[in-house]
Each structure stands twice: as C-alpha cells, then as structure tokens.
C-alpha cells in the first residue's frame, strides 16, 4: 500500500493507523495525526483503517518563537 506521509511517498504493510505508527517506531502520546486533512483522535488510532494513497501528517512539538 502506498501512503503519503509528511509529504513523502512510503510503502507500508499495515492495516490500521496504530500499526503504521508502531512500524514507524513512534511514541503514540508524542504525536498528533491528520488523515486526509482530518484529525484522527488518539483513541481512534486502533480502529482507523488506512487505504492506498491516503495522505498523513504526523506532527510533534518542536522549539519555536
């Protein structure tokens, strides 16, 4: 399955969003996720299925002014 994650194409074999986040080795409580421009709440990571060509933004907090 082809996904666009943070603007880059990535091939991933995962069913749910939590599968993907685990595959990417991310701490679930330190990220927020948008799927096709809609926020996915943390409690829905498990039951959110991913489809070919889905666009994801996975963000975190960084330094800024």
């Amino acid at each position, binding site marked *: 399955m082809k996904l666009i994650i*943070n*603007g880059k194409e990535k091939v991933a074999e995962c069913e749910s969003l939590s599968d993907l986040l685990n595959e990417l080795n991310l701490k679930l409580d330190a990220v*927020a996720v948008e799927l096709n421009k809609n*926020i996915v709440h943390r409690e829905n990571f498990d039951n959110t299925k991913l489809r070919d060509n889905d666009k994801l933004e996975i963000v975190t*907090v960084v330094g800024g002014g």
Partner: protein
Amino acid sequence: MNDEKLKIGKFEFSSRLIIGTGKYANFDIMEKAHEASGAEVVTVAIRRINFNNKEENILEHINKNKMTILPNTAGCYTAEEAIRTARLAKELGLPEWVKLEVIGDKKTLMPDNEETLKAAKVLVKEGFTVLPYTNDDIVACKKFEEAGAAAVMPLGAPIGSGQGILNPNNIKIILENAKVPIIVDAGVGTASDAVIAMELGADGVLLNTGVALAGDPVRMARAMKLAVESGRDAFLAGRIPKKLYASASSPIEGVIR
C-alpha cells in the same frame, strides 16, 4: 509591589514576559534561560516528525509546573494551514490557546492579516483562546479584537531582526484604543527594547531570538526579565514630561556666594 495579573482569556500570569523555545544551542541552555527569565508562558512550534533524525522531545525540557505552553502556527502561509496546526496542537495535549501567525512574505516574515483574520474567526468559534500576531497597525488590531482575539500581538520589528520597537507611536496608539491585552511580539533584540515596549504600556512582551542567540542566553534572559519588570514599573509610576530646558533638582535659594 502590587500589580494586577496579566489576563489572557481564562489564563492568568504574574510574569509579563513570554519566551520562545527556538534557536537555542541546546536544551540545557534553554532550560537555564527559561528559569532566569521568570517567564510563565513559553511558545513552541508544531512540525512534521523528521523520520531521519529523531530529536529529543522538547516537552521534557520545559518546566510545566512553572510554565504554560503556548503553541504557535509559525511557518503557516494560509488560514487553512494555521487552523490545522492549531487543531493538531490541541490534539498533542497542549492548552487550547494559540499564537496565531500566518506569514505573507518569506523574506520579511510580515503577517498576512487577511488570512490571519480568517483563521482567527474559525478558531475563536472552535473555542480556542486566540492571540494573533500582526502589524503595528491600529486597524488590524481592532479587527482582531472584534473577531474575538483574547490578546493581540503587534510586532515591534520583523521577526528575529532585533531592531527593537521601530514605531513606538503606533504601539502607543494601539494601546490607547485596545480593550484586550497587547503583547509586543517580535523585534526585541536587547533589554532596552523590552523596557520601551513596557514603558509605552504594553501588557507584555514576547521574544525568542533576542535571548536564544545572545552571547550568553541565560544572562540575557535575566536582563529581559528585569527589563520587562522595570518598564512595567516605570509605566505604572508615570514618567515626568520631557522639557526643553533644565529644572534644578537642588534648591535655588541659599547657595553660598
């Protein structure tokens, strides 16, 4: 000495300095600078995770007992990007308020007020406490106030330029007409810049680069703390009018001849 607290929406603070978390050489210096600044609000940015270079979590280096985190929408060029960024910040568990910044020009980082206003209206409706970053322009500031902004943040000078308060008269005019707190945001390069902003009557100062890139950020953080307090006191005390000619401080009578 007594002073009222800085109230922004439902948030209340004793310190009137808001400090950033960007551009520090390392987290250790940042933590020490934050401590020295006495700031009770720190700004952060929201960015895509960098899978190639996973960085340490900055939240572990912010003293959350003393400081409230204020997410920004820096780097956004449209209302839509800014709205999405604010929502993502909320999703990250940060407090539901936002330093709303929509930039219109890459080189000057000047704000796009039209897009900022669009975003402000949507986010206010969604329940966010909105603090828009804008020009030192009375009309823009009024529009944000009318749109429900909890505070308005006019710039002193372009972001990161350290040029100080370029148009004190504009800031003064904004302050005389504002019904919400006015935080001077951007351009503060050294302590005297912060003093000037506060002496004009600003409710607070937001800065990042002036401290983060100073020769000694921790010492500059302390200087900024003192500057904000000093400027605030001078404003509350009420300065003497400027006069063209001298006025002796010692008695004129009784001088030996």
